[in-house]
Protein backbone atom coordinates (compact mmCIF):
# COMPACT_ATOMS: atom_id res chain seq x y z
CA UNK A 1 0.00 0.00 0.00
CA UNK A 2 1.27 3.41 -0.99
CA UNK A 3 -0.17 5.71 1.65
CA UNK A 4 -0.60 9.31 0.51
CA UNK A 5 -3.26 10.39 2.98
CA UNK A 6 -1.19 11.71 5.90
CA UNK A 7 -3.52 14.67 6.35
CA UNK A 8 -6.24 12.19 7.28
CA UNK A 9 -4.11 10.24 9.72
CA UNK A 10 -0.59 8.89 10.19
CA UNK A 11 0.73 5.47 11.20
CA UNK A 12 1.69 5.07 14.85
CA UNK A 13 5.41 5.47 15.40
CA UNK A 14 7.05 2.33 16.77
CA UNK A 15 8.69 4.13 19.67
CA UNK A 16 5.42 5.81 20.56
CA UNK A 17 3.67 2.43 20.68
CA UNK A 18 6.41 1.04 22.93
CA UNK A 19 5.98 3.95 25.32
CA UNK A 20 2.18 3.46 25.38
CA UNK A 21 2.12 -0.32 25.78
CA UNK A 22 2.68 -0.64 29.56
CA UNK A 23 -0.36 1.56 30.16
CA UNK A 24 -2.55 -0.95 28.35
CA UNK A 25 -0.97 -3.89 30.15
CA UNK A 26 0.44 -3.71 33.65
CA UNK A 27 0.09 -0.01 34.43
CA UNK A 28 -3.67 0.24 34.07
CA UNK A 29 -4.42 2.47 37.04
CA UNK A 30 -6.89 5.34 37.04
CA UNK A 31 -4.86 8.52 37.52
CA UNK A 32 -7.41 9.77 40.07
CA UNK A 33 -6.90 6.73 42.35
CA UNK A 34 -4.83 7.34 45.45
CA UNK A 35 -2.95 4.05 45.45
CA UNK A 36 0.36 3.20 43.79
CA UNK A 37 -1.16 2.01 40.55
CA UNK A 38 -3.19 5.22 40.21
CA UNK A 39 -0.30 7.47 41.09
CA UNK A 40 1.90 5.73 38.53
CA UNK A 41 -0.69 6.51 35.86
CA UNK A 42 -0.97 10.08 37.05
CA UNK A 43 2.77 10.51 36.85
CA UNK A 44 2.70 9.25 33.28
CA UNK A 45 0.18 11.79 32.06
CA UNK A 46 1.91 14.61 33.92
CA UNK A 47 5.18 13.60 32.25
CA UNK A 48 3.34 13.78 28.94
CA UNK A 49 1.90 17.15 29.84
CA UNK A 50 5.39 18.44 30.62
CA UNK A 51 6.60 17.21 27.23
CA UNK A 52 3.80 19.10 25.51
CA UNK A 53 4.44 22.21 27.60
CA UNK A 54 8.14 22.10 26.72
CA UNK A 55 7.31 21.74 23.03
CA UNK A 56 5.30 24.97 23.19
CA UNK A 57 7.66 26.68 25.60
CA UNK A 58 4.83 27.18 28.08
CA UNK A 59 3.68 26.06 31.55
CA UNK A 60 1.98 22.75 32.30
CA UNK A 61 -1.09 24.66 33.49
CA UNK A 62 -1.58 25.88 29.95
CA UNK A 63 -1.90 22.39 28.50
CA UNK A 64 -5.41 20.91 28.58
CA UNK A 65 -5.64 17.36 27.29
CA UNK A 66 -8.61 16.41 25.15
CA UNK A 67 -9.79 13.38 23.19
CA UNK A 68 -8.51 14.86 19.95
CA UNK A 69 -8.51 17.90 17.70
CA UNK A 70 -12.29 18.19 17.35
CA UNK A 71 -12.72 18.18 21.10
CA UNK A 72 -9.95 20.77 21.52
CA UNK A 73 -11.72 23.01 18.99
CA UNK A 74 -15.01 22.51 20.78
CA UNK A 75 -13.39 23.38 24.12
CA UNK A 76 -11.90 26.52 22.65
CA UNK A 77 -15.08 27.81 20.99
CA UNK A 78 -17.71 26.59 23.41
CA UNK A 79 -15.51 27.14 26.45
CA UNK A 80 -14.80 30.76 25.52
CA UNK A 81 -18.23 31.77 24.27
CA UNK A 82 -20.09 30.24 27.21
CA UNK A 83 -17.75 31.88 29.72
CA UNK A 84 -17.87 35.29 28.06
CA UNK A 85 -21.67 35.25 27.71
CA UNK A 86 -21.93 34.23 31.37
CA UNK A 87 -19.59 37.02 32.50
CA UNK A 88 -21.54 39.52 30.39
CA UNK A 89 -24.88 38.55 31.87
CA UNK A 90 -23.60 38.63 35.44
CA UNK A 91 -22.22 42.10 34.76
CA UNK A 92 -25.83 43.00 34.00
CA UNK A 93 -25.12 44.62 30.68
CA UNK A 94 -28.66 44.86 29.41
CA UNK A 95 -27.77 47.39 26.75
CA UNK A 96 -24.81 45.42 25.50
CA UNK A 97 -24.93 44.14 21.95
CA UNK A 98 -24.58 40.42 21.47
CA UNK A 99 -20.91 39.45 21.46
CA UNK A 100 -19.37 38.67 18.07
CA UNK A 101 -17.35 35.65 16.94
CA UNK A 102 -15.39 35.62 13.70
CA UNK A 103 -14.30 32.45 11.96
CA UNK A 104 -13.93 31.41 8.30
CA UNK A 105 -15.52 29.26 5.61
CA UNK A 106 -12.37 27.16 5.27
CA UNK A 107 -12.23 25.90 8.87
CA UNK A 108 -12.43 22.26 9.81
CA UNK A 109 -16.01 21.15 10.45
CA UNK A 110 -15.33 20.91 14.19
CA UNK A 111 -14.83 24.68 14.20
CA UNK A 112 -17.37 25.61 11.53
CA UNK A 113 -20.27 23.47 12.76
CA UNK A 114 -19.58 24.44 16.37
CA UNK A 115 -19.66 28.12 15.38
CA UNK A 116 -22.98 27.53 13.59
CA UNK A 117 -24.47 25.90 16.69
CA UNK A 118 -23.23 28.77 18.86
CA UNK A 119 -24.91 31.14 16.43
CA UNK A 120 -28.14 29.13 16.56
CA UNK A 121 -28.18 29.31 20.36
CA UNK A 122 -28.82 33.00 19.89
CA UNK A 123 -26.37 34.57 22.32
CA UNK A 124 -23.64 35.29 19.79
CA UNK A 125 -23.42 36.89 16.36
CA UNK A 126 -21.09 34.95 14.07
CA UNK A 127 -19.26 35.99 10.89
CA UNK A 128 -17.62 33.64 8.41
CA UNK A 129 -14.78 35.16 6.44
CA UNK A 130 -14.40 34.18 2.78
CA UNK A 131 -11.05 32.94 1.53
CA UNK A 132 -9.20 34.48 -1.39
CA UNK A 133 -9.02 32.54 -4.67
CA UNK A 134 -5.83 30.87 -3.50
CA UNK A 135 -7.32 29.80 -0.19
CA UNK A 136 -6.10 32.43 2.27
CA UNK A 137 -7.93 34.35 4.97
CA UNK A 138 -6.21 37.73 4.95
CA UNK A 139 -5.56 40.08 7.86
CA UNK A 140 -7.32 42.75 5.82
CA UNK A 141 -10.52 40.78 5.49
CA UNK A 142 -10.46 40.23 9.26
CA UNK A 143 -9.79 43.88 10.00
CA UNK A 144 -12.86 44.97 8.05
CA UNK A 145 -15.01 42.46 9.90
CA UNK A 146 -13.92 43.30 13.47
CA UNK A 147 -16.50 45.27 15.45
CA UNK A 148 -16.50 46.69 18.96
CA UNK A 149 -18.50 43.66 20.01
CA UNK A 150 -15.98 41.15 18.60
CA UNK A 151 -14.65 38.96 21.41
CA UNK A 152 -13.49 35.71 19.74
CA UNK A 153 -11.61 35.00 16.52
CA UNK A 154 -10.92 31.44 15.41
CA UNK A 155 -8.82 30.87 12.27
CA UNK A 156 -6.87 27.75 11.34
CA UNK A 157 -3.10 27.77 10.89
CA UNK A 158 -3.03 25.54 7.80
CA UNK A 159 -5.94 24.24 5.78
CA UNK A 160 -6.44 20.48 5.77
CA UNK A 161 -7.56 20.30 2.13
CA UNK A 162 -5.21 22.65 0.30
CA UNK A 163 -2.39 22.90 2.84
CA UNK A 164 -2.52 26.72 2.49
CA UNK A 165 -0.70 28.34 5.43
CA UNK A 166 -2.69 31.22 6.88
CA UNK A 167 -1.08 34.52 8.00
CA UNK A 168 -1.71 33.80 11.67
CA UNK A 169 1.16 35.85 13.16
CA UNK A 170 0.07 38.83 11.10
CA UNK A 171 -3.50 38.38 12.23
CA UNK A 172 -2.36 37.88 15.82
CA UNK A 173 -0.45 41.14 15.65
CA UNK A 174 -3.52 42.96 14.34
CA UNK A 175 -5.59 41.59 17.22
CA UNK A 176 -2.89 42.57 19.73
CA UNK A 177 -2.96 46.13 18.42
CA UNK A 178 -6.72 46.28 18.78
CA UNK A 179 -6.59 44.81 22.29
CA UNK A 180 -4.08 47.48 23.39
CA UNK A 181 -6.77 50.10 22.78
CA UNK A 182 -9.43 48.17 24.63
CA UNK A 183 -10.32 47.55 28.26
CA UNK A 184 -8.97 44.16 29.21
CA UNK A 185 -12.51 43.01 30.01
CA UNK A 186 -13.44 43.57 26.34
CA UNK A 187 -10.39 41.97 24.79
CA UNK A 188 -10.53 39.68 21.77
CA UNK A 189 -9.44 36.07 22.26
CA UNK A 190 -7.66 34.51 19.29
CA UNK A 191 -7.77 30.74 18.72
CA UNK A 192 -6.04 28.78 15.98
CA UNK A 193 -6.64 25.20 14.88
CA UNK A 194 -3.09 24.01 14.25
CA UNK A 195 -3.96 20.35 13.86
CA UNK A 196 -2.36 19.96 10.41
CA UNK A 197 0.75 22.01 11.15
CA UNK A 198 2.45 20.73 14.32
CA UNK A 199 5.16 18.74 12.52
CA UNK A 200 6.04 21.47 10.08
CA UNK A 201 5.57 24.96 11.48
CA UNK A 202 6.72 26.88 14.55
CA UNK A 203 3.57 26.65 16.67
CA UNK A 204 4.68 28.44 19.80
CA UNK A 205 1.93 30.77 20.96
CA UNK A 206 4.18 33.80 21.24
CA UNK A 207 5.47 33.26 17.72
CA UNK A 208 1.98 32.88 16.27
CA UNK A 209 0.63 35.66 18.53
CA UNK A 210 -2.35 33.52 19.31
CA UNK A 211 -3.91 32.87 22.71
CA UNK A 212 -5.15 29.32 22.07
CA UNK A 213 -4.07 26.45 19.86
CA UNK A 214 -5.53 23.01 19.06
CA UNK A 215 -3.59 19.89 18.20
CA UNK A 216 -4.24 16.20 17.60
CA UNK A 217 -1.77 13.35 18.10
CA UNK A 218 -2.78 11.10 15.23
CA UNK A 219 -1.66 13.72 12.72
CA UNK A 220 1.97 13.41 13.82
CA UNK A 221 2.52 9.67 14.25
CA UNK A 222 0.82 9.53 17.66
CA UNK A 223 -2.32 7.63 18.62
CA UNK A 224 -5.91 8.49 17.78
CA UNK A 225 -7.99 9.70 20.71
CA UNK A 226 -5.56 12.25 22.13
CA UNK A 227 -5.25 15.97 21.58
CA UNK A 228 -4.70 19.19 23.46
CA UNK A 229 -5.70 22.82 23.74
CA UNK A 230 -2.75 25.07 24.56
CA UNK A 231 -3.73 28.35 26.17
CA UNK A 232 -2.16 31.50 27.51
CA UNK A 233 -2.25 32.23 31.23
CA UNK A 234 -5.70 32.98 32.59
CA UNK A 235 -7.76 32.11 29.54
CA UNK A 236 -11.39 32.05 30.67
CA UNK A 237 -13.05 28.77 29.74
CA UNK A 238 -16.25 27.03 30.74
CA UNK A 239 -16.15 23.24 31.03
CA UNK A 240 -16.85 21.27 27.88
CA UNK A 241 -17.29 17.94 29.60
CA UNK A 242 -18.61 18.47 33.09
CA UNK A 243 -18.00 15.97 35.84
CA UNK A 244 -14.90 15.29 37.87
CA UNK A 245 -11.93 17.57 38.26
CA UNK A 246 -9.69 16.15 35.54
CA UNK A 247 -8.11 18.81 33.29
CA UNK A 248 -9.11 21.50 35.77
CA UNK A 249 -12.74 20.48 35.35
CA UNK A 250 -12.80 21.40 31.66
CA UNK A 251 -12.62 17.89 30.24
CA UNK A 252 -13.91 15.63 32.96
CA UNK A 253 -13.59 11.88 32.80
CA UNK A 254 -10.97 9.24 33.36
CA UNK A 255 -8.05 10.07 31.15
CA UNK A 256 -7.07 7.91 28.19
CA UNK A 257 -3.70 7.24 29.76
CA UNK A 258 -2.03 5.24 26.97
CA UNK A 259 -3.16 7.73 24.31
CA UNK A 260 -1.97 10.75 26.31
CA UNK A 261 1.36 9.06 26.95
CA UNK A 262 1.59 8.49 23.21
CA UNK A 263 0.78 12.12 22.50
CA UNK A 264 3.63 13.34 24.71
CA UNK A 265 6.12 10.94 23.16
CA UNK A 266 5.03 11.75 19.61
CA UNK A 267 5.29 15.50 20.11
CA UNK A 268 8.64 15.21 21.81
CA UNK A 269 9.91 13.21 18.82
CA UNK A 270 9.37 16.25 16.62
CA UNK A 271 11.86 18.36 18.60
CA UNK A 272 14.80 19.40 16.47
CA UNK A 273 13.46 17.52 13.45
CA UNK A 274 10.92 19.95 12.01
CA UNK A 275 13.21 21.31 9.34
CA UNK A 276 14.32 17.86 8.23
CA UNK A 277 10.74 16.52 8.17
CA UNK A 278 9.57 19.54 6.18
CA UNK A 279 12.44 19.27 3.73
CA UNK A 280 11.76 15.62 2.99
CA UNK A 281 8.02 16.13 2.49
CA UNK A 282 8.49 19.21 0.32
CA UNK A 283 11.02 17.48 -1.91
CA UNK A 284 8.60 14.64 -2.64
CA UNK A 285 5.57 16.88 -3.04
CA UNK A 286 7.38 19.22 -5.44
CA UNK A 287 8.77 16.31 -7.45
CA UNK A 288 5.27 14.81 -7.60
CA UNK A 289 3.72 18.05 -8.86
CA UNK A 290 6.48 18.55 -11.44
CA UNK A 291 5.95 15.05 -12.76
CA UNK A 292 2.19 15.51 -12.87
CA UNK A 293 2.51 18.71 -14.87
CA UNK A 294 4.89 17.02 -17.27
CA UNK A 295 2.91 13.85 -17.82
CA UNK A 296 -0.79 14.74 -17.49
CA UNK A 297 -2.45 17.64 -19.24
CA UNK A 298 -5.42 19.72 -18.02
CA UNK A 299 -4.61 19.67 -14.33
CA UNK A 300 -4.73 22.53 -11.81
CA UNK A 301 -3.00 22.67 -8.45
CA UNK A 302 -4.97 24.52 -5.78
CA UNK A 303 -3.23 27.15 -3.62
CA UNK A 304 0.01 26.63 -5.53
CA UNK A 305 0.79 30.33 -5.51
CA UNK A 306 0.83 30.59 -1.70
CA UNK A 307 2.85 28.96 1.08
CA UNK A 308 1.54 25.49 1.75
CA UNK A 309 2.35 22.72 4.18
CA UNK A 310 5.30 20.90 2.65
CA UNK A 311 3.50 17.58 2.13
CA UNK A 312 0.16 18.82 0.80
CA UNK A 313 -0.98 18.69 -2.80
CA UNK A 314 -4.56 19.32 -3.89
CA UNK A 315 -5.00 18.69 -7.61
CA UNK A 316 -7.89 19.07 -10.03
CA UNK A 317 -7.86 16.47 -12.82
CA UNK A 318 -10.29 18.16 -15.19
CA UNK A 319 -12.91 15.94 -16.82
CA UNK A 320 -12.15 12.99 -14.56
CA UNK A 321 -14.30 12.54 -11.48
CA UNK A 322 -12.70 12.44 -8.02
CA UNK A 323 -14.33 9.39 -6.50
CA UNK A 324 -13.67 7.36 -9.63
CA UNK A 325 -10.00 8.42 -9.49
CA UNK A 326 -9.83 7.58 -5.78
CA UNK A 327 -11.33 4.12 -6.30
CA UNK A 328 -9.04 3.39 -9.23
CA UNK A 329 -6.00 4.45 -7.20
CA UNK A 330 -7.25 2.33 -4.30
CA UNK A 331 -7.47 -0.68 -6.63
CA UNK A 332 -3.86 0.03 -7.62
CA UNK A 333 -2.87 0.04 -3.93
CA UNK A 334 -2.60 3.81 -3.51
CA UNK A 335 -4.51 5.63 -0.75
CA UNK A 336 -5.59 9.26 -1.20
CA UNK A 337 -8.50 11.57 -0.43
CA UNK A 338 -10.93 13.51 -2.61
CA UNK A 339 -13.04 16.65 -2.42
CA UNK A 340 -15.56 15.25 -4.87
CA UNK A 341 -19.25 15.34 -4.05
CA UNK A 342 -19.68 11.72 -5.04
CA UNK A 343 -17.38 10.71 -2.23
CA UNK A 344 -19.05 12.79 0.45
CA UNK A 345 -22.05 11.72 2.51
CA UNK A 346 -23.99 14.86 1.66
CA UNK A 347 -23.17 14.67 -2.06
CA UNK A 348 -21.72 18.19 -2.04
CA UNK A 349 -18.22 18.93 -3.37
CA UNK A 350 -15.53 20.33 -1.08
CA UNK A 351 -16.91 23.46 0.57
CA UNK A 352 -13.37 24.76 0.96
CA UNK A 353 -12.73 24.62 -2.78
CA UNK A 354 -16.17 26.07 -3.54
CA UNK A 355 -15.51 28.90 -1.06
CA UNK A 356 -12.27 29.62 -2.95
CA UNK A 357 -14.33 30.06 -6.10
CA UNK A 358 -13.47 26.75 -7.77
CA UNK A 359 -16.46 25.94 -10.05
CA UNK A 360 -18.42 22.87 -8.83
CA UNK A 361 -17.70 20.85 -11.96
CA UNK A 362 -13.97 21.35 -11.41
CA UNK A 363 -14.18 20.71 -7.67
CA UNK A 364 -15.60 17.27 -8.57
CA UNK A 365 -12.18 16.27 -9.89
CA UNK A 366 -10.20 17.21 -6.82
CA UNK A 367 -7.78 14.74 -5.26
CA UNK A 368 -5.80 15.50 -2.11
CA UNK A 369 -2.36 13.92 -1.78
CA UNK A 370 -0.52 14.32 1.52
CA UNK A 371 3.03 13.01 1.76
CA UNK A 372 4.66 11.87 4.98
CA UNK A 373 7.50 9.96 6.57
CA UNK A 374 6.97 6.61 4.87
CA UNK A 375 6.94 7.95 1.31
CA UNK A 376 9.72 7.86 -1.27
CA UNK A 377 10.47 8.73 -4.89
CA UNK A 378 9.68 5.24 -6.18
CA UNK A 379 6.15 5.52 -4.76
CA UNK A 380 5.70 8.92 -6.35
CA UNK A 381 6.81 7.54 -9.73
CA UNK A 382 4.34 4.65 -9.46
CA UNK A 383 1.54 7.03 -8.43
CA UNK A 384 2.15 9.32 -11.38
CA UNK A 385 2.21 6.33 -13.75
CA UNK A 386 -1.07 5.00 -12.40
CA UNK A 387 -2.67 8.45 -12.39
CA UNK A 388 -1.80 8.96 -16.03
CA UNK A 389 -3.50 5.69 -17.00
CA UNK A 390 -6.51 6.31 -14.77
CA UNK A 391 -7.12 9.89 -15.84
CA UNK A 392 -6.77 9.04 -19.54
CA UNK A 393 -9.25 6.20 -19.17
CA UNK A 394 -11.79 8.28 -17.25
CA UNK A 395 -11.49 11.13 -19.75
CA UNK A 396 -12.22 8.71 -22.57
CA UNK A 397 -15.33 7.53 -20.74
CA UNK A 398 -16.42 11.11 -20.10
CA UNK A 399 -18.71 12.80 -22.67
CA UNK A 400 -17.30 15.81 -24.49
CA UNK A 401 -18.65 19.27 -23.77
Amino acid at each position, binding site marked *: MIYLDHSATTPLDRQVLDEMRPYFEKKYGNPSSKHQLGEEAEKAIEKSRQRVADFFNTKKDNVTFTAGGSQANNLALRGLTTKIAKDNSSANNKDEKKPHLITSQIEHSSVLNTAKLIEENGQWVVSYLEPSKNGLITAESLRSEIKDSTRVVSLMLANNETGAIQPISQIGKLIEEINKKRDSKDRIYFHTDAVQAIEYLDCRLDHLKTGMLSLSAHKFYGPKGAGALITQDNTPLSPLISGGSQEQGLIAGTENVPALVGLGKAIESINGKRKKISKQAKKLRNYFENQLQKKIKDIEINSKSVSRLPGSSNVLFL*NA*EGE*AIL*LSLDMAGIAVSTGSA*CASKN*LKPSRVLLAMGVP*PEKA*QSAIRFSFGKGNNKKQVDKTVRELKKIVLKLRRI*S*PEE
Partner: protein
Amino acid sequence: MYSEKIINHFKNPKNMGKMENPTVKARVGNKICGDVMEVTLKIKDGVITDAKFQAFGCAPAIATCSIMTQMIKGEKLKEARKINPEKIDKSLGGLPEVKKHCANLAFETLEKALNKHKQGSEKS
Protein backbone atom coordinates in the same frame (compact mmCIF):
# COMPACT_ATOMS: atom_id res chain seq x y z
CA MET B 1 -18.19 -0.44 -0.40
CA TYR B 2 -19.20 -1.73 -3.87
CA SER B 3 -20.32 -5.15 -5.09
CA GLU B 4 -18.05 -7.18 -7.34
CA LYS B 5 -20.38 -6.51 -10.28
CA ILE B 6 -20.13 -2.75 -9.80
CA ILE B 7 -16.35 -2.97 -9.61
CA ASN B 8 -16.20 -5.09 -12.78
CA HIS B 9 -18.42 -2.71 -14.71
CA PHE B 10 -16.28 0.15 -13.49
CA LYS B 11 -12.99 -1.54 -14.39
CA ASN B 12 -14.23 -2.82 -17.76
CA PRO B 13 -17.27 -0.84 -18.81
CA LYS B 14 -19.39 -2.40 -21.56
CA ASN B 15 -20.43 -0.42 -24.64
CA MET B 16 -18.39 2.62 -23.72
CA GLY B 17 -17.89 5.19 -26.44
CA LYS B 18 -19.54 7.14 -29.21
CA MET B 19 -21.51 5.92 -32.17
CA GLU B 20 -21.25 7.04 -35.79
CA ASN B 21 -24.66 8.30 -36.92
CA PRO B 22 -26.79 7.23 -33.97
CA THR B 23 -30.54 7.02 -34.41
CA VAL B 24 -30.98 8.98 -31.20
CA LYS B 25 -28.77 10.61 -28.55
CA ALA B 26 -29.66 11.77 -25.04
CA ARG B 27 -27.73 13.42 -22.24
CA VAL B 28 -28.71 13.91 -18.61
CA GLY B 29 -26.84 15.74 -15.85
CA ASN B 30 -27.33 15.45 -12.11
CA LYS B 31 -26.65 18.65 -10.29
CA ILE B 32 -26.74 16.90 -6.93
CA CYS B 33 -23.46 15.10 -7.35
CA GLY B 34 -22.36 16.40 -10.71
CA ASP B 35 -22.68 13.19 -12.75
CA VAL B 36 -23.33 13.52 -16.48
CA MET B 37 -24.52 10.61 -18.63
CA GLU B 38 -24.91 10.37 -22.38
CA VAL B 39 -26.37 7.45 -24.34
CA THR B 40 -26.49 6.89 -28.11
CA LEU B 41 -28.77 4.27 -29.65
CA LYS B 42 -29.05 2.65 -33.06
CA ILE B 43 -32.63 1.55 -33.64
CA LYS B 44 -33.80 -0.53 -36.63
CA ASP B 45 -37.26 -1.98 -37.09
CA GLY B 46 -38.15 -1.40 -33.47
CA VAL B 47 -35.00 -3.11 -32.15
CA ILE B 48 -32.05 -1.45 -30.37
CA THR B 49 -29.26 -2.85 -32.50
CA ASP B 50 -26.53 -0.92 -30.77
CA ALA B 51 -26.16 1.14 -27.58
CA LYS B 52 -23.20 3.14 -26.35
CA PHE B 53 -22.67 5.37 -23.34
CA GLN B 54 -20.32 7.99 -21.98
CA ALA B 55 -20.35 9.22 -18.39
CA PHE B 56 -18.62 11.66 -16.11
CA GLY B 57 -19.08 10.49 -12.56
CA CYS B 58 -18.19 8.12 -9.79
CA ALA B 59 -17.71 4.37 -10.15
CA PRO B 60 -21.41 3.47 -9.73
CA ALA B 61 -22.37 6.15 -12.27
CA ILE B 62 -20.18 4.42 -14.86
CA ALA B 63 -21.37 0.96 -13.76
CA THR B 64 -25.09 1.78 -14.00
CA CYS B 65 -24.63 3.11 -17.54
CA SER B 66 -22.57 0.12 -18.56
CA ILE B 67 -25.11 -2.42 -17.35
CA MET B 68 -28.04 -0.42 -18.67
CA THR B 69 -26.63 -0.48 -22.22
CA GLN B 70 -25.95 -4.18 -21.81
CA MET B 71 -29.56 -4.76 -20.78
CA ILE B 72 -31.05 -2.97 -23.79
CA LYS B 73 -28.70 -4.00 -26.61
CA GLY B 74 -30.47 -6.34 -28.99
CA GLU B 75 -33.83 -5.79 -27.31
CA LYS B 76 -37.12 -4.60 -28.80
CA LEU B 77 -38.09 -1.05 -27.79
CA LYS B 78 -41.04 -2.49 -25.91
CA GLU B 79 -38.70 -4.58 -23.76
CA ALA B 80 -36.32 -1.68 -23.18
CA ARG B 81 -39.26 0.35 -21.84
CA LYS B 82 -39.64 -2.20 -19.03
CA ILE B 83 -36.28 -1.29 -17.53
CA ASN B 84 -36.44 0.81 -14.36
CA PRO B 85 -33.96 1.99 -11.66
CA GLU B 86 -34.75 -0.97 -9.38
CA LYS B 87 -33.88 -3.46 -12.13
CA ILE B 88 -30.61 -1.64 -12.80
CA ASP B 89 -29.82 -1.57 -9.09
CA LYS B 90 -30.63 -5.26 -8.67
CA SER B 91 -28.64 -6.42 -11.66
CA LEU B 92 -25.56 -4.73 -10.20
CA GLY B 93 -25.96 -6.62 -6.95
CA GLY B 94 -27.31 -3.60 -5.13
CA LEU B 95 -26.00 -0.07 -4.82
CA PRO B 96 -25.23 1.57 -1.47
CA GLU B 97 -28.11 3.81 -0.34
CA VAL B 98 -26.17 7.01 -1.03
CA LYS B 99 -25.51 5.83 -4.62
CA LYS B 100 -29.01 4.71 -5.60
CA HIS B 101 -29.50 7.97 -7.50
CA CYS B 102 -26.95 6.71 -10.06
CA ALA B 103 -29.42 4.03 -11.14
CA ASN B 104 -32.10 6.72 -11.39
CA LEU B 105 -29.87 8.80 -13.58
CA ALA B 106 -29.00 5.93 -15.93
CA PHE B 107 -32.71 5.16 -16.23
CA GLU B 108 -33.53 8.82 -16.95
CA THR B 109 -30.92 8.90 -19.69
CA LEU B 110 -32.46 5.82 -21.33
CA GLU B 111 -35.97 7.16 -20.92
CA LYS B 112 -35.00 10.48 -22.48
CA ALA B 113 -33.49 8.70 -25.49
CA LEU B 114 -36.52 6.46 -25.95
CA ASN B 115 -38.94 9.40 -25.64
CA LYS B 116 -36.92 11.44 -28.08
CA HIS B 117 -37.04 8.58 -30.55
CA LYS B 118 -40.78 8.15 -30.07
CA GLN B 119 -41.40 11.87 -30.71
CA GLY B 120 -39.20 11.74 -33.78
CA SER B 121 -41.06 8.77 -35.33
CA GLU B 122 -44.45 10.32 -34.45
CA LYS B 123 -43.48 13.43 -36.40
CA SER B 124 -42.53 11.49 -39.52
